[in-house]
């Protein structure tokens, strides 16, 4: 008998304890969804025999990865489900034509963004017009209630570096690039304030929307393009930083990054800033900021296994109070909550969080919410009506930069 050292790849590592299903946000609100245990390791046995089962249900997984970080045996459940989705797509099962077209589009956030850049204002007017939303709902299956984020003129950074000693490469991600450029500019300012030259190559989408919509191979292709853009910087040992937790997870999961030579170079923004703090290299002459905040940790931050560095860092600022909301997934999961047939599920998933936010604000415990994830920001604002923004804005205030 030989011992299998890589438990994660071993299907038999699943002890059928159901801890993943007990904590799955989708299964909690949607009785038709059998949950990660059944769709993951249970169905995988049949899939390995060439039998595709429950292909329609696979699409209800929101890819939040709660099951993976919950599993006591390290089974890669989301990965199994994503691979099964890809296989189901190839075999033509699981989706109607309408949903296939819609998911094809949602997977390509970058191209949608580029299209919107022709005229962001016109796009916003159209996306807010009820007749347009009705058509989008009927033709494409995009919920007419979904909080589609507004577009803004494109975020632009400096593409090439000078000879500065302290350089970082910033990966803005599609949300900052097309929807929220001010946050990108704020991140650049904070890094520059700490003496870094910030280089922003013309990156493509990180691939998360593709993966989330069942286009695993395309996600890998786009990752290769980004890797080629990063390559010279990685070789020069320049760190790569992103303020988006989903981009961060995708960049860290990128296969080439698991090679030893590229290790220790991809950072979540606050993970990087915290490291500067630990090395006494962070500027900490903070202004006092009298504010109480509720913090929501996004699922894809949790999946990075780095803790909550933004909470740690903001607590260094005099006057700042941070309460961790700890209410699980917001429900949006990228484009999942925009989809007609999933909108209600997404809102139900987010309900405990929205209630906690509303109660916290009503009782005066905190005034507004912070979270790194753009999608979570959109959903929390939509579900609770409370101001929600990226934590970088608190740091901007502390540095007196805004």
């Amino acid at each position, binding site marked *: *008998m030989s*011992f299998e050292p890589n438990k994660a790849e071993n299907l038999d590592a699943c002890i059928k*304890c*159901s*801890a993943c299903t*007990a*904590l799955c946000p989708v299964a*909690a609100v949607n*009785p*038709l969804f*059998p949950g990660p245990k059944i769709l993951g390791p249970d169905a995988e046995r049949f899939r390995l025999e060439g039998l595709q089962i429950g292909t329609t249900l696979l699409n209800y997984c929101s890819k939040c990865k709660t099951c*993976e*970080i*919950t*599993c*006591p045996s*390290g089974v890669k459940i989301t990965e199994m489900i994503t691979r099964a989705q890809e296989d189901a797509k190839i075999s033509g099962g699981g989706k109607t034509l309408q949903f296939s077209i819609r998911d094809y589009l949602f997977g390509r956030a970058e191209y949608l963004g580029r299209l919107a850049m022709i005229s962001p204002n016109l796009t916003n007017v159209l996306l807010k017009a009820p007749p347009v939303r009705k058509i989008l709902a009927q033709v494409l299956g995009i919920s007419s209630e979904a909080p589609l984020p507004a577009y803004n003129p494109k975020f632009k950074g400096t593409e090439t570096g000078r000879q500065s000693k302290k350089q970082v490469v910033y990966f803005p991600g599609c949300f900052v690039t097309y929807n929220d450029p001010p946050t990108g500019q704020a991140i650049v300012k904070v890094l520059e304030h700490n003496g870094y030259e910030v280089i922003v190559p013309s990156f493509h989408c990180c691939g998360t929307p593709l993966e989330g919509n069942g286009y695993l191979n395309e996600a890998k292709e786009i990752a290769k393009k980004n890797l080629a853009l990063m390559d010279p910087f990685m070789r020069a040992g320049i760190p790569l930083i992103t303020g988006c937790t989903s981009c961060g*997870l995708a*960049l*860290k*999961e*990128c296969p080439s*990054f*698991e090679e030893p030579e590229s*290790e*220790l*170079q*991809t950072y979540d923004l606050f*993970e990087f800033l915290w490291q500067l703090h*630990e090395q006494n290299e962070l500027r900490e002459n903070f202004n006092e900021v009298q504010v109480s905040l509720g913090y929501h940790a996004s699922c894809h931050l*949790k*999946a*990075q*296994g*780095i*803790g*909550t560095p933004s*909470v*740690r860092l903001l*607590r260094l600022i005099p006057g700042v109070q941070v*309460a*961790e909301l*700890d209410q699980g997934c917001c429900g949006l999961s990228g484009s999942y909550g925009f989809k007609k047939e999933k909108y209600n599920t997404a809102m139900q998933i987010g309900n405990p969080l929205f209630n906690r936010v509303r109660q916290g604000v009503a009782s005066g415990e905190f005034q507004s919410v912070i979270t790194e994830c753009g999608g979570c920001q959109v959903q929390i604002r939509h579900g609770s009506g409370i101001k929600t923004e990226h934590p970088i804005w608190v740091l901007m205030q502390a540095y007196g930069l805004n």
Partner: protein
Amino acid sequence: MWDGIIIGGGLAGLLAGIRASERGKHILIISEGVGSLTYSSGALDFGDAGQLLNQENHPYALLGETSIRAGMDYFQRLFPDYQGKWGVTQNLLTPLGSPRKASIVPYGQNAESLQDARRIVLMAPDGMKDFFPEIIKTNLERSYPQCVVEVYPFRVGAFESWHAIGKSVTGMEYAKYWQSGPGISELKRVLNCLTMIFDGEVSSKKNETAVLFPGIATAFSDPLKEILSETPFPVIEMTAFPPSASGHNLYCALKQKFKSLGGELLFGTGVQRIELQGKLCDKAIVKSKGRYTAFSARSFILATGGIFGGGIEVTPEAAQETVLGLPLYVPAELTNSEFLGEQPYAHMGIEVDSELRPTGPGNKEVLFENLRVIGRMLAHWDPWTDNCGGGVSLATGWFAGEKL
């Protein structure tokens, strides 16, 4: 730099984290999984402390009675919904309806009132998973021969779509529903129906009735506690098969307490190794996504659990402690042919001094000055035959949190 890093986020690790944070320490808990509390009934065993305190090398004997009692008192001070007294055990029911004993029991699980009952009404929610009313009825009749046992089936509208597709509803789903707004109204309605039925009966019968309610967890929920305290008959919760709502709620309460005291919880990834500086632990190296992250601290606590929790890995060749490779006490014979009897492997673990610092094999020399080992990872005890799993975790967790 943290004051303390605790590796493992189960009962012992979280309690240590809470105590240390309460004392103003800056604490990080790194936990590979979500701990095993969700698999537990939620009730906590302390065992026969009088005897265990005299059992050589037992964690109780190492710490002494004062510390064990302090752990018990501290836990109840944190969570007043948990009740128990030193040296006194309470009756509660297993998921199959047999009585068992425990030392600290969450609000609602205490089943003492069954002793005085003449009739037990077993609530039977429709389509509940891992719930076997006929077996429970038989077991109750055997254990409480003075009682008549009646099964009261009822159906909850909120789960119609579950029933329609033939999907069973887990006890955790039921318990979560009872805590929601609509669930609370429905519970009032169900209990009112019962009250009305009992009102039509002769008083001797209705006054001697106890109601058993599976799939509900009242601890930590003020509205539920209020409703159940107002019924004219005692309502007793049943413990559940894993995953269990009571165990899960305790896990959530511990986590919330720790975070509200400013503690940080990093979960989903374990500690790959510890970097040392002589006889001191210096940095915990965590396998984050795509890269390693180093966290340094002044003190460390190892609370990674035993074989089930992943703190000890057993292969056909050897057993090893997974984080530091600390020397393990391994009994010569691992198993006993009597399945439910004492199993020697249960005593496997790390030997420590009276400060819970790991010691070298065969001697009492402390291996690391700033490391303490707590909970299931300790050697020389058996949670099943000693019935002291909760006690060891609370006492050692409290002690380490106090000393950190």
